[in-house]
């Protein structure tokens, strides 16, 4: 099926970029929020309108400018890109609603700037999802790094400044220091940067060079939070919660993992990796990250930092799934992007709601909170089930495929790692839920008159919790997309 050139991917990317001048110019808050909502809705609808074509295996292509010989700023919508774009744009609607409640609840300053950079970050995310070659991916990756810096350092205090510095050091440092040279070297080897189904790097290149390239890409995309370059994520928890919710659970980190998957499938190609058995090395790196992150999460008392480390662990699931080099593993990895997104965003919404309602950040202060905020904690429970991977929630589907993925190549070690880490996930989520609902009389810190967070916060987290359960029963959309991308 030859690709169909259409303007839709470009409009999808530019719709939120276009809203920025309007946001700057609009005077009062309601108009501004209405515009953000409108932009989110419009983006989701445009992405949705491209879905039927993609489901039939059709690819939509749009070349913006032929910038370098053999390299163009070009957008291409394929199944994998569509999956990620769907997740990101749908959750932006929910998050924009949530951030209205959150920002009004704490009457934060600089809200116009907040919504503008939020829109910029989203356009970069969708751009990364639809990028046709490694160069456009790098372009949107950099744009995302710089667009999220003002969001992370929103509070403009000393701590925000330190974490902003760390955020930049890791993300921009590795992207310029590792990804740029790697891209140059691969362009030098292959002469092009277009993603192709089984990789564009020539098999004739020396294995040492290919290995070095792989690891430069792996650690270069620091947004994926692979172990040595992960500590920007907990530091970024200083940001307001909707930022942590959408960006640091769904958009930004997923772009990092999305790039790594694109590199593994589009740049190297699974058969090249298999022939050089580089896949095994990547699985060990991912496994190491999963275990260590889960262990550290156990020790974190601040709720958002625990969720952050849990995210680092979950991201490496996706990398692990892809590195198993089996079709099932790849499908599992791709679905996990969606499942984890919905699960983790619910958890972050709950954390935000707790902070808005009670001002509490630390888990030790949340004993018996279930009596005061039953709905929030119920959603928290569902979210944690999904992240752990227990049946009634979507997380189970992706974990199931990941486990199936380890079988064909007899990678028992990876199977064991998956199971242990699921246990660890349970170990750091269930105590929170348990202590929230079943506290002894003397230790309960909250009286049992229910007083939830404002509706603007509550409704989105209920929706996302419902989605996690819905995805368990009807995962066919994402499954179909993942299988299409895997083939």
């Amino acid at each position, binding site marked *: 099926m030859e690709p169909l050139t259409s303007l839709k991917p470009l409009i999808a990317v530019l719709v939120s970029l276009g809203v920025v001048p309007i946001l700057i110019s609009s005077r009062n808050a309601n108009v501004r929020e209405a515009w953000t909502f409108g932009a989110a809705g419009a983006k989701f609808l445009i992405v949705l309108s491209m879905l039927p074509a993609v489901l039939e295996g059709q690819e939509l292509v749009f070349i913006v*400018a032929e*910038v*370098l010989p053999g390299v163009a700023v070009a957008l291409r919508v394929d199944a994998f890109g569509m999956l990620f774009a769907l997740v990101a744009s749908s959750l932006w609607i929910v998050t924009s609603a949530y951030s209205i409640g959150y920002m009004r609840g704490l009457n934060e*300053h600089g809200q116009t700037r907040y919504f503008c950079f939020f829109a910029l970050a989203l356009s970069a995310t969708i751009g990364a999802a639809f990028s046709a070659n490694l160069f456009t991916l790098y372009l949107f990756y950099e744009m995302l790094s710089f667009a999220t810096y003002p969001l992370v350092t929103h509070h403009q205090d000393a701590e925000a400044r330190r974490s902003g510095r760390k955020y*930049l050091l890791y993300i921009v440092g590795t992207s*310029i*220091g590792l990804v*740029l040279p790697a891209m*140059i070297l691969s362009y030098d080897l292959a002469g092009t940067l277009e993603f192709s189904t089984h990789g564009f790097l020539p098999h004739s290149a020396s294995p040492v060079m290919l290995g070095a390239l792989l690891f430069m890409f792996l650690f270069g995309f620091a947004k994926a939070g692979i172990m040595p370059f992960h500590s920007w994520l907990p530091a970024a928890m200083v940001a307001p919660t909707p930022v942590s919710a959408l960006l640091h659970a769904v958009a930004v980190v997923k772009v990092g993992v999305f790039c790594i998957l694109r590199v593994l499938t589009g740049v190297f190609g699974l058969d090249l990796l298999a022939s050089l058995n580089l896949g095994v090395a990547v699985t060990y790196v991912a496994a190491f990250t999963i275990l260590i992150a889960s262990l550290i999460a156990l020790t974190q008392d601040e709720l958002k930092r625990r969720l952050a480390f849990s995210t680092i662990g979950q991201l490496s699931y996706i990398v692990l799934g892809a590195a198993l080099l089996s079709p099932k593993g790849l499908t599992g990895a791709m679905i996990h992007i969606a499942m984890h997104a919905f699960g983790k965003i619910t958890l972050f919404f709950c954390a935000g709601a707790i902070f808005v309602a009670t001002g509490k950040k630390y888990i030790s202060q949340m004993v018996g909170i279930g009596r005061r905020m039953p709905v929030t904690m119920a959603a928290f429970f569902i979210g944690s089930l999904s992240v752990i991977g227990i049946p009634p929630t979507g997380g189970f589907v992706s974990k199931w495929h990941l486990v199936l993925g380890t079988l064909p190549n007899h990678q028992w070690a990876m199977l064991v790692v998956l199971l242990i880490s699921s246990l660890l996930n349970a170990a750091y989520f269930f105590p929170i839920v348990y202590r929230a609902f079943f506290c002894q009389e003397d230790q309960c810190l909250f009286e049992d008159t229910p007083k939830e967070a404002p509706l603007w916060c509550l409704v989105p987290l209920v929706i996302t919790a419902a989605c996690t359960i819905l995805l368990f029963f009807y995962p066919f959309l994402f499954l179909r997309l993942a299988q299409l991308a895997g083939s």
Partner: protein
Amino acid sequence: MSAHYPALLVIIPLLASFFISAAGWLRPPWCFPLALTAMGGSLLVSIGLLADVIRGIPDLYWFGGWAPPWGIYYRVDHLNALVLVVISGVGFVNLWAARPTVDRELPEKAGAFYTLYVLFVTGLLGMVVTGDAFNLYVLLEIAAITGYALIALGKGRAPLASLNYIFMGTIGACFYLLGVGYLYIVTGSLNMQDIARLLAPLHGSRVVTVAFVIMMVGVWLKMGFFPLHAWLPNAYTYAPSPVSSLVAPLMTKVMVYVMIRMVMTVFTVDYAFGVLVLNEAVVWLAVIAIVAGSLMALAEKDFKRMLTFIVVAEVGYMVGGFWLGNRSGFTGSVLHIVNDALMTLCLFLAAGSIIHARGESRIQSLQGLFSTMPWTMGALVVGAMSIIGVPPTCGFFSKWYLLLGAVEGGHYGFLAALLFSSLVNVVLFFRIFEIGYFEPMEASHGGASHGHAHGHEAPAMSEAPLGMLVPLWMTALGLIAVGFYTGEIVGRVIRHAIPATMF
């Protein structure tokens, strides 16, 4: 009419400068409009020349009707058509931004200022388009003398800095003149093509080697290439802001062009890279230039002085890129002349409007800039992105070619230096953005804004005048536009400029 474009390119600003100087005495208000027509005219002519070159019409112009080796002739080819457009473009845009400062600081001598401004750009335009080695020296001196005078106008240490610039600049120009003399004594002709033809049999001789070395040292001295850059930081820092945003983007880039022209046309590429085994050493010199420039910029306390050290590092990019000796390196170097001129203009214009509004350029005094001057800082962010090398802006693409050239040439030292300098640029600019973003304005900071605690309500917006903001934003958007048009620029123009013998 278009046959006369090469002559008109230089004559329009030259004649206009005489009218401006006379108008300075007779009708002072006419000075700025005359200067504007001069710059606008030369911009249109240079665009016309570029169009001719792209259409493949060679532009040869014999002055006085005499054939080349006897008379002086202008030759517009793929290489200098692009540089012409950049020079006249930067001159035109910067003139807009110069007006508020000139009206405020030297109202009576505006005529003289605009005369020297236009003559400076004329000198550069002539230098880029001339085909005669000695004529290039004369135009070099015009640009130099007007540059010295304009720089000496600044406050504080400007005269001393300009005097040092004169000494180093004169030594550089005389070395260049000596180089031309050595070539003349051995070949008997002053015309570049003619010298190349006559020089071919003499490639082994000592004179050609020494002439090459002297010319290179002279050109490097004028361009501020690392070991010979001592004059550049002071000269560009203490110059008045409209002058530094004119001289910084153009002077060094045109001298890089002169180096490329000399090596490509007079000494021919296979001599420079074949007979002489100099290019390895020069690339390592460029590596030192980049690293040293970046480190010194890091150590700087003054914002504008930091920018000058970035210019020193960028010169290292261009020289290193060219001396790699392969097609990508050459393309990267020429493209970087275009991109770096625009980037440096954007940064210095932003610095100029900050100094215009704040009165000083110490980095510590840049607090609360994002709230008081959001538009200027917005443009500064775009400029910074381009210097760091972030894709949509043009800075990335020239860095891409330079890196590719380094990889193809197997020169990993140069690759490491480029990446190191990009990372240092990130630190440099985000240090300033942090101060501008986090630290609130102190009380009574010269501006009308009042001091306050946590910066909750943004202090009054004391933006630079519109006259400076419009050119600044034109440049910033230009950076992104040129970024997207890199394919066109390289494909249509630079690719044809590469000498055939370059592998």
